[in-house]
């Protein structure tokens, strides 16, 4: 009887949460389809997708996202691997550092970046290329909590130390261990981190806005100020992209269990 009551409460809260999430979503979707008076149409989407500024800003953010993901993976995988192998006591400190982007407001961080890098000796705001370097570094920091956690969970699932020692005893050097053993066994963790990192960059507003780069976030705000239906269409497109990313994580995670094994000491 008690279990049944708990079950009912569980359903109640699940449905309440879904309504809380889906009613505004449905409202946005419905509104985005009513650009043509009295008719349901995709006109708002057509207008957004036909806008060369949208495509340029989307392309820019997508490229930045890919660069951010690549550099993040190359930084975080060897770093976390090294922490697990040689500096396990440093892990809590690194973990705290990685959550700093959640503690320090992005606006404060951006002002810090501009103040530090707009003058010598590291002047990175003079040309678009240099600013792109700065914005990429900013994106890496902002996506750090997600990337760190994804790889950290992946590292925990495999016995990094024993696998490393096994590879060493077979004659592998550090480079071979990293690329033959560690990276392939972190495939799913890296993919999860990469997709969340990519979604973060695609939707990021403040860095793009204050460093005056043609990113998707500032474009969406700009459209929102001057138009009514297109921002709703953009919001739906943005959600869809995020869901595709989450769907891909789920899809690839399913195959992971077949290649995982316990290597506890």
């Amino acid at each position, binding site marked *: 009887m008690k279990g049944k009551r708990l079950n009912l409460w569980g359903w109640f809260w699940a449905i309440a949460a879904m309504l809380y999430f889906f009613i505004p979503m449905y409202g946005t979707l419905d509104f985005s389809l009513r650009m043509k008076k009295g008719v349901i149409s995709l006109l708002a989407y057509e207008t957004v997708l036909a806008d060369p500024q949208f495509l340029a800003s989307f392309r820019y953010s997508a490229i930045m996202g890919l660069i951010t993901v690549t550099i993040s993976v190359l930084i975080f995988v060897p770093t976390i691997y090294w922490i697990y192998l040689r500096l396990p006591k440093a892990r809590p400190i690194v973990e705290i550092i990685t959550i700093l982007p959640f503690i320090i407001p992005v606006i404060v961080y951006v002002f810090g970046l501009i103040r530090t890098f707009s003058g010598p000796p590291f002047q990175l705001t003079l040309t678009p290329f240099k600013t792109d370097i700065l914005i990429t570094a900013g994106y890496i920091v902002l996506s750090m909590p997600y990337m760190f956690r994804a790889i950290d969970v992946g590292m925990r699932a*495999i*016995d990094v130390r*024993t*696998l490393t*020692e*096994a*590879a*060493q*005893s*077979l*004659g*592998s*050097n550090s480079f*071979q261990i990293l690329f*033959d*053993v560690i990276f*392939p*066994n972190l*495939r799913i963790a890296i993919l999860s981190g990469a997709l969340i990192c990519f979604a973060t960059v695609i939707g990021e507003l403040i860095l793009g806005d204050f460093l005056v780069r043609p990113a998707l976030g500032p474009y969406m705000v700009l459209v929102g100020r001057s138009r009514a239906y297109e921002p709703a269409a953009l919001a739906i497109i943005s959600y869809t992209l995020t869901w595709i990313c989450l769907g891909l994580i789920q899809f690839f995670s399913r195959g992971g269990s*077949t*290649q*995982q*094994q*316990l*290597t*506890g*000491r």
Partner: protein
Amino acid sequence: MAFLELSHIQKSFAGAVAVEDFNLSVAQGEFISFLGPSGCGKTTTLRMIAGFELPTSGQIMLSDNDLTYLPPNKRNVGMVFQSYALFPNMTVAENIGYGLKVAGKLKAEINQRVQEMLALIHLEEFGARYPARLSGGQQQRVALARALAFHPQVLLLDEPLSALDAKIRVELRHEIRRIQQQLGITTIYVTHDQEEALSLSDRIVVMSQGKIEQVGTPSEIYNFPSTEFVAKFVGQINLLPVQVIDAKKGVVRLGGQTMRAGQFGHLNGNSIRLAVRPEELNPGFVEGANNLTGKVEAITYLGSIIRISVDVEGYPIHLDVFNERKLKIPATGESYQLTFPIEACWLL
């Protein structure tokens, strides 16, 4: 000159001594077991041979080459881990061939060696499988093949059977010995299981608290333990606190009952103990042997063996007898006479 020589090896972790003055010479093709309880330094010593730990002092020589500070990937030493440590992203064949691939061998040579190894471990049909699709015993066989495939000079096994169930453990134990003898590879085997060490090894190194207690053949270790620790750790033993009556003849007394020890050195000090294995004791009285009388305390069934615990002068003595159908089992509290030959006991 020994094939593998460990001289005055010392290892400390943050001031705590893990291994102390470890000296051992291993001949080529020999099977040596490091036996001891948890924390005795056996795995640390093995890891120093593998290169995963560096000795605080001392020297490790392998075939006249100084290995002491050589990185693990330059030592040509194969290692099998307790947790198998197979690479989950590689198939069985890829795992076995990985050492050869790293060494830059040709694909044809790798394939041929992988097939040889698969045949050696009787897993010819499993080359294309991933480790997660194998049982624990099969995974450990693959780990063994992987450690042997690249022709290492020494094979190290760190409690390789601990994670397996009892039946598989016995099967794989024979398999390891067969392969080791077939290939004639020098092997160091770490275990805390005395039965494993006794059944596998040419020689056993018994360790306690970072030090070697005794090195010897399984028979020497079991029948002639040199310290109380070895006597207690390997097999079951009765240790009786006795008083020396005649130091020259090895005559001792337990309460009001006298006995003679077969082996005894220079007897001095008060803490003399008479040691005798439970299987050396028999019920009854034999003229000219050591004979004791006590009361039956407990009867324990151990399958093929029945252990009778007898209280003699306030000390428990265990006696192992074969569980034969005709055996008359004494009742608890019953007066019981037991006997053992003089040469079956010794003083520690």
